């Protein structure tokens, strides 16, 4: 192997090993450790100076206590379940909102399409934090939405939406809508329109033609979009902590609080490991789906 090639491979490889793989192994190790009143606040720590005995003692000190703790305290499994439920419902709502937009884009004049694409992608470039923050002003009890509804006479007393799960759903749909629209648009754009004409010539109404031709053909896009929304929503921290209030349980928030408020590093690490294990399933399914359609 020539030296140029070696450097080219070794530099990014070493960087990722040191700053992705090793940290991950540390999380795994700390999740098996015990909480201790010390700096750092866990035991055992790795002590190479003690030699072989030190290593043996180190492995002897590891156990699954934190994972057992996760199953015993119902806060954790409740927040895993609640995260999955919120992510699933939000993904479905994003599909409902995104599909018509993607469909309309694919029916727009070809010369408009690049501009429409850019308009859909543009919000993604600006800070998610700010975009979520923008909804506080809309949803709070004296916010724009309530002002509008009160003024128009639809309601008499302001709705309280902020700090509920509804606000979290709105936040997720808003933040991840481009992730749903783009893959669906990509699969609809490729579609051959003469198929629709054939269906109509054969006696389908427009609506049956949609359900029997367009919809099945856009399925790969729908599946990809759903995964692209579901996977990041599951570990979401920003949206539930800004819009969800104290009653919304999501695992990303629990991990954050376990770490920053309770300073319980071993439990926070165990929460992280379990979250990853849960995420592996949709990620593998997503990859399978991508490979099948590649």
């Amino acid at each position, binding site marked *: *192997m020539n030296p*140029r090639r070696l450097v*080219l*491979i070794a*530099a*990014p*490889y070493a*960087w*990722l*090993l040191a*700053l*992705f*793989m*090793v*940290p991950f192994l540390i*999380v795994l190790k*700390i999740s098996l450790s015990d909480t201790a009143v010390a700096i*750092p606040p866990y035991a055992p720590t790795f002590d190479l100076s003690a030699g072989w005995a030190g290593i043996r003692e180190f492995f002897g000190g590891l156990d699954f206590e934190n994972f057992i703790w996760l199953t015993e305290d119902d806060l954790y499994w409740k927040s895993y379940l609640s995260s999955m439920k919120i992510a699933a419902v939000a993904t479905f709502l994003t599909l409902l909102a995104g599909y*018509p*937009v993607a469909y*309309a*884009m694919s*029916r*727009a004049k070809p010369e408009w399409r690049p501009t*429409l694409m850019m*308009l*859909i992608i*543009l919000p993604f*470039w*600006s*800070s*998610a*934090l*700010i*975009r979520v*923050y*923008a*909804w506080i*002003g*809309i949803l709070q009890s*004296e916010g724009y939405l309530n*002002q509008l509804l009160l003024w128009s006479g639809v309601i008499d007393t302001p709705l309280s939406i902020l700090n509920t799960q509804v606000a979290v759903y709105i936040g997720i749909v*808003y933040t991840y*809508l481009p992730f749903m*629209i783009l893959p669906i648009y990509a699969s609809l754009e490729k579609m051959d*329109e003469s198929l629709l004409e054939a269906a109509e010539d054969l006696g389908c109404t427009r609506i049956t033609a949609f359900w029997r031709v367009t919809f099945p053909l856009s399925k790969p896009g729908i599946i990809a979009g759903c995964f692209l929304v579901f996977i*990041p929503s*599951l*570990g979401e*921290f920003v949206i539930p902590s*800004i819009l969800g209030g104290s009653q919304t349980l999501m695992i*990303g928030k629990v991990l*954050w609080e376990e*770490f920053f408020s309770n300073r319980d*590093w071993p439990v926070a*690490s165990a929460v*992280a490991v379990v*979250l*990853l294990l849960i*995420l592996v399933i949709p990620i593998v399914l997503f990859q399978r789906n991508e490979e099948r359609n590649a």
Partner: protein
Amino acid sequence: MKRSMSVFNMTTLTLGLAFLYLPMLLLMVYSFNASRLVTVWAGFSTQWYGELLRNQQFLDAAWVTLRVAVVSSTLATVLGTMAAWVLVRERRFLGRTLFSGMIYAPLVMPEVITGLSLLLLFIAIGLDRGILTIILAHTTFAMCYVSVVVSSRLVTFDRSLEEAALDLGCSPMQAFGHVTLPIIAPAVVSGWLLAFTLSLDDLVIASFTSGPSSTTLPIKIFSSMRLGVSPEINALSTILISIVAVGVVVAALVSKRQIARRETEEREGLT
């Protein structure tokens, strides 16, 4: 037969775009509100922008954020381009599966886990948290995004051009500099821009890896957000949204012009 846009499709597009843009528009309009009560309009004023410029904490945070973003996105672009090259060109080497796994995994890793794991690493090796640790963290996840963007361009790259340069006596480095780099340049630039905005926007990973003296803008914004909406945050958000919007639109127009120019050059070359 070409169907014209139906009323239904026009309506959905309008509603969809309104949903995407109205919240940001409201935020921007109300940043020019004279009242401290954010949701009640009380006349036009730019006082919150003035207040923002006098707020030393925000200015310090902005300076930290900018330095982190410039350094980490540049590092990420170099490493990410190398990684993209390795992914596309180096078909066989020891541990290739692990390598590509480590490129794709950070893209789907929840930010709280990336942040937590990096923090635990920095503590384990005794590295004090500060600007350096945020740069290391941002470079790591941004390089993966860069390598995905660049490798999608490298896949479609015609290798015979590079071989021609080598046959004509270029060294491998010269061939890369004169042939490959100019062709993949738009992807490298958009990779850099993506890395830059990712670093600019990141709250979660920065919160884990920053120290007390290195608060970034998103961390500052987040801690003031917990107290509810404030006109200063609206003003700051307006500035950030405008910078990003102008940057993205300019980048899109430049790359469009480049593509158009290349196409005319190719057409003229053929005749």
